[in-house]
């Protein structure tokens, strides 16, 4: 076995790195006048537009979806080259913008060749922004119990209903959504999955005010006429299609290297705080055995999530049979966030809650994490949903199930 994510790079890789680096030097320079926001939700419209254009340029080179076949807008790169690309990209601190690309793998598995040819390049090249809207206000985790309806009218569907989704700060081009296509069929055999153009008449939005500005909104479908070409996977396959998206969202794909815990830098900030702050009597926190234990626990719990993500990355990319693994990744990451929040509170006390420009450690990373740990608990399936899926995949439930198909090539 080899856990090392360090690589001895081939000459070919180093040449490619050079190419990427030069390109990025020319194209990945954020104009100095843009302020980089503390939270994504606070991004200015100007910066947002700049990032979108930058992504289109990346997409044109196939570098937004490096592992995807080039015929569908991807880079057609090998894992080795994609790794180099990833490393170079991560050196530039370009803020992420919200683009839920989970429609793509589902389209790859379930779409017609025509749909793949048409939509995948749009998604993979960054030409469009997609938001995913499966759940509804009264639905929560029980995604099969949605009531938004899609009634066939000739070749079209008339969609009515209200969805809840989390999206970026501005607008989307497509909404990846589910609706009931057959009122008479049983659960899991009554849905359609639609890749809906966001500008169709009858679609409107309203914002929700959350404790983290993640752009959670309602979307209202009011007699929206959606042509049949936007239905992916057939009239009663929507549940299965959505599962492919969810499987990936839950973390089946895993990730490589540190940062798999997506902790927003809170552990680094914690170590930094503990190594610099003193207690009331003036003693360095780092000398307190209790604090040291808490720091080690933070390190271990984070590392476990990194290893689980690495396991998934390796399994996914080596076509191993995956069962509970995706949901476990998501579950552990969600639980980790709450644990880290508690550890930060124990170590930093009232400083854990500050975003004050004078007094907040690490520019308010603690405070932001406190809110985000809670907020991140629900999207993409709460920890309870992940447990439900794990139980099924472990063979404990009445309903046995396999992981949804996710292979794209």
């Amino acid at each position, binding site marked *: 076995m080899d856990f090392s994510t360090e690589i001895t790079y081939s000459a070919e890789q180093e040449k490619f790195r050079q190419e990427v680096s030069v390109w990025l030097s020319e194209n990945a320079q954020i104009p100095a006048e843009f302020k980089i926001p503390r939270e994504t939700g606070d991004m200015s419209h100007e910066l947002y537009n700049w990032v979108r254009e930058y992504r289109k340029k990346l997409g044109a080179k196939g570098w937004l979806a490096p592992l995807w076949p080039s015929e569908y807008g991807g880079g057609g790169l090998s894992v080795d080259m994609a790794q180099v690309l990833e490393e170079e990209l991560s050196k530039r601190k370009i803020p992420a913008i919200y683009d839920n690309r989970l429609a793509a793998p589902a389209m790859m598995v379930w779409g017609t060749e025509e749909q793949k040819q048409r939509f995948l390049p749009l998604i993979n090249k960054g030409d469009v922004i997609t938001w995913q809207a499966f759940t509804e206000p009264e639905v*929560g985790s029980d995604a099969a*119990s949605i009531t938004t309806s899609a009634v066939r009218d000739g070749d079209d569907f008339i969609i009515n209903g209200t969805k809840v989704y989390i999206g970026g700060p501005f607008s989307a081009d497509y909404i990846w959504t589910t609706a009931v296509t057959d009122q008479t069929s049983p659960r899991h055999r009554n849905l359609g999955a639609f890749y809906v153009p966001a500008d169709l008449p009858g679609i409107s939005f309203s914002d929700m005010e959350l404790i983290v500005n993640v752009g959670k909104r309602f979307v209202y479908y009011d007699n929206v006429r959606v042509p049949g070409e936007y239905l992916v996977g057939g009239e009663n396959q929507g549940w299965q299609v959505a599962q492919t998206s969810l499987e990936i969202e839950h973390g089946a794909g895993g990730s490589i290297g540190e940062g798999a815990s997506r902790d927003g830098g809170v552990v680094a900030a914690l170590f930094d705080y503990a190594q610099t702050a003193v207690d*009331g*009597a003036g003693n360095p926190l780092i000398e307190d055995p209790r604090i040291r234990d808490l720091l080690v626990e933070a390190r271990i719990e984070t590392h476990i999530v990194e290893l689980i993500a690495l396991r998934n990355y390796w399994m996914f990319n080596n076509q191993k049979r995956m069962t509970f693994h995706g949901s476990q990744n998501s579950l552990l990451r969600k639980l980790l966030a709450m644990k880290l929040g508690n550890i930060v509170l*124990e170590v930093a*006390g009232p400083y854990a809650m500050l975003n004050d420009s004078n007094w907040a450690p690490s520019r308010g990373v603690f405070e932001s994490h406190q809110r985000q740990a809670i907020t991140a608990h629900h999207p993409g399936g709460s920890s309870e949903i992940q447990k439900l899926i794990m139980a099924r995949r472990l063979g404990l439930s009445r309903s046995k199930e396999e992981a949804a198909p996710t292979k794209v090539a």
Partner: protein
Amino acid sequence: MVDLGLTDAQEMLRNNAHRFVQDKCTREVVREIDESERGFSESLWKDISEIGWPSIVIDEQYGGMGSSLTDAGLLFEEMGWACMPSPLHSSSVLSALVLQQAGTADQRQHYLPLIADGNRIVAFAFSEPGYGWGPESIHTQANKVGDKYVVSGTKLFVPDAESADSYLLVARTRATDVSGSGLTLFIVDKEVPGIHVKEVSGWTGDKLYEIAIEDAILTEAQVVGEVNRGYEVLEPILDRGTALLCAYMLGGLQQMADMSVTYSQNRIAFGVPISTFQRVQDMIINIVNDLEAVRWTTYEALSMIDNGAREQDIAEAVSMAKIVASEGFTRGTENAHYVHGGVSVDMKYGLYLYTKKSRTLFSYLGDPAYHKKRVASLMFD
């Protein structure tokens, strides 16, 4: 002999308080206050002053109700249930008890009736940047120069400093020694030059402030109690304030149980109320287990104070209650978030008010680590 029941008068007190907060301190009111500049509502303060709440633990001779701490605890429980923001705890409990206990006759005559009426708010300015609740955490210096004190230092995380008219200020007049003395208490009205109040922004349960003190000149008349013996006065008062804070946290946790039970009974998923899922039940059972632990450790601490137990036993009971309350309230909000799912982070729903309150009170008057050390000392040293 064991009697864990409330008297009829206490039942009435609690019922009235409950009706009051249900009526005057709804979730919307609390959100509004929370988002206001000072985190303070004049009108709500006027309402609770009218019904005498700021006078609850002040002696009758100063216009107070002179109630037992258990009685006061019932009010705090209801305030916590509503997540009511107010300076009542810092002004009418911590500061008032200090003045009542150690103040000169003049100080008592002057301040206590005003505090009891709600006409004066006295913030309690103890904590500093190196956060802690033992005497060793006080570094603000008060140096005697002639018959004056020249005070410099930084108070941090002080609640109610902006809405207050005065501060009960804790400063060091002698270097630390083992006995923990060397602190002196001052009562300071707001207009003193050299004192600057500034909000410390964050996702905090109460608005918190920095009080920057730079060569502020105080007189001997402002000293409360004996010079250098401030912590001896403070320690038992901190215990009483902590016991009432636990009662407030108990109320907050009760609300977490109430909201979670109701929501889970009414929210339908997979065709049934989510309360019928064992996973959801276990979250609520965890809340109820924490709730009862907080309830009885808190009631025990309050009752020991009222029944005149030894200070050392009170200290242990209070510290245990605060450990249980800090952990239980924080965990209780976490469980409530799990029960509620996505709506729990919707600001309109208002659960977050309890979440951030629990995390602020987790540390206020001493976090579990502080109180565990204290209990260990009481038990083993």
